[in-house]
């Protein structure tokens, strides 16, 4: 059995050598917010945060996550208590079908930690590792900027 820390909880799973982290998270831990679309590390849908860095979970071996801290969309907010980034995406309608949204939100989280006060162009580059087939990009960029504001306000009141 292999020990993973996912969304703050330790869990033990049986991982096959070739199994991707995305498959482990979905099939064994029921974390279906990890969306697998291209399965080639191109589209960003499966983005999770591993030890503070965004990674495409579909091309990381599950075994390579042993001992690391994994954060998925399920770990950042709940229906009753949304994360400011989730709230921002809703306010700005930064999605249409929403299949890609968890990946976008996790990428946004990692990006805003590196650059808390981005320009519009920086925000667009910041989410350039994710593909939205509905083409909601202008609204997604607005969501990132709105989220930046929310996070800064949150920090100021703390």
């Amino acid at each position, binding site marked *: 059995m292999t020990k993973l820390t996912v969304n703050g909880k330790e869990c033990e799973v049986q991982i096959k050598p*070739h199994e991707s982290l995305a498959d482990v998270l979905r099939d064994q831990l029921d974390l279906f917010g990890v969306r697998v679309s291209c399965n080639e590390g191109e589209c*960003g849908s499966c983005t999770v945060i591993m030890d503070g*860095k965004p*990674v*495409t979970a579909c*091309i*990381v*071996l599950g075994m390579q996550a042993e001992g690391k801290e994994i954060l998925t969309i399920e770990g950042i907010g709940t229906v009753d208590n949304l994360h400011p980034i989730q709230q921002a995406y809703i306010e700005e309608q930064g999605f249409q079908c929403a299949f890609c949204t968890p990946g976008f939100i996790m990428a946004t989280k990692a990006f805003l930690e590196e650059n808390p006060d981005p320009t519009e162009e920086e925000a667009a580059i910041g989410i350039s*590792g994710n593909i939205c087939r509905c083409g909601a990009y202008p609204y997604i960029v607005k969501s990132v900027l709105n989220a930046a504001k929310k996070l800064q306000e949150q920090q100021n009141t703390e």
Partner: protein
Amino acid sequence: MKQPFEYLRPNTSEEAVALKAKHKDRARYWAGGTDLMLQWRAGELDIDYCIDLTYLPTLSYVENEQGSVRIGSMASLDDLDYAADSNQLMEVIGHTARLMCTKQTRTISTVGGNMCNASPSADLSVLFVALDCEATIMGSGGSRTVLVENFFKGVNETILKDDELLIEIRLPVPEYPKEACYKRIARTFVDIALISSAVSISSTNGVVTDARISLGSVAPVPIRSRTAEQKLIGLNLLEVDDDILEEAGQLAATDASPISDVRAGKVYRQDMCKVLTRRTVEESVQKLVQKQK
């Protein structure tokens, strides 16, 4: 067919090399795995063992030293981006890393993986050749150092022997003025280079003392255009005008032997080889002239 394999996790480079020596070509070193994972899924990877290098604690550094920067083979492309402000040459390397794949794969992809996959279009390899970088390789019998220029043997082929592991890339950072530039043609950021050109130029008292011009995606391995280099050496920086740039570009295009493939045609590649080399030389020279002022 997708072949199952066994997962091995060495804790030191020595252990990794010993495992590889034992299983030879039935094993592959697994760095970021961004290439191998796809090959495995496509049924193109026939191995019995994967030797995972991500738990080696000592190979993911980017360290500044007197006269050089040492880049561990397991440093990620994202690490290169972070190290971009250490000097003018690392800035070019960091900029190049930012052109490659996406943020969430740059955190996984490694310098060593990019080099050992030995794709003719690998951005870093072309640049490392132009920057005169050295590669340190470790095998069961000891270590050796080669110029990155001599590291590649063919498409997806390197000089690494069965047991050997790429440990480090060393970037020389001389005291005399040296500037570099990398440019490529690709449809978008994330795309693979259709053709690329990297240049480094050194000067003393305003005269070009050394030039390295390296071209990607025009041959099975990154190649140097020695004729274009010779054209520049000995010139005063201010003598490098439109005519010289045009000539250097033309010489580079003549040295290149691209093929037509799904990404681009031979003639287009040759034309762009000229254009890109012209621009990379021009930008490097401009940087040197600016530093002089």
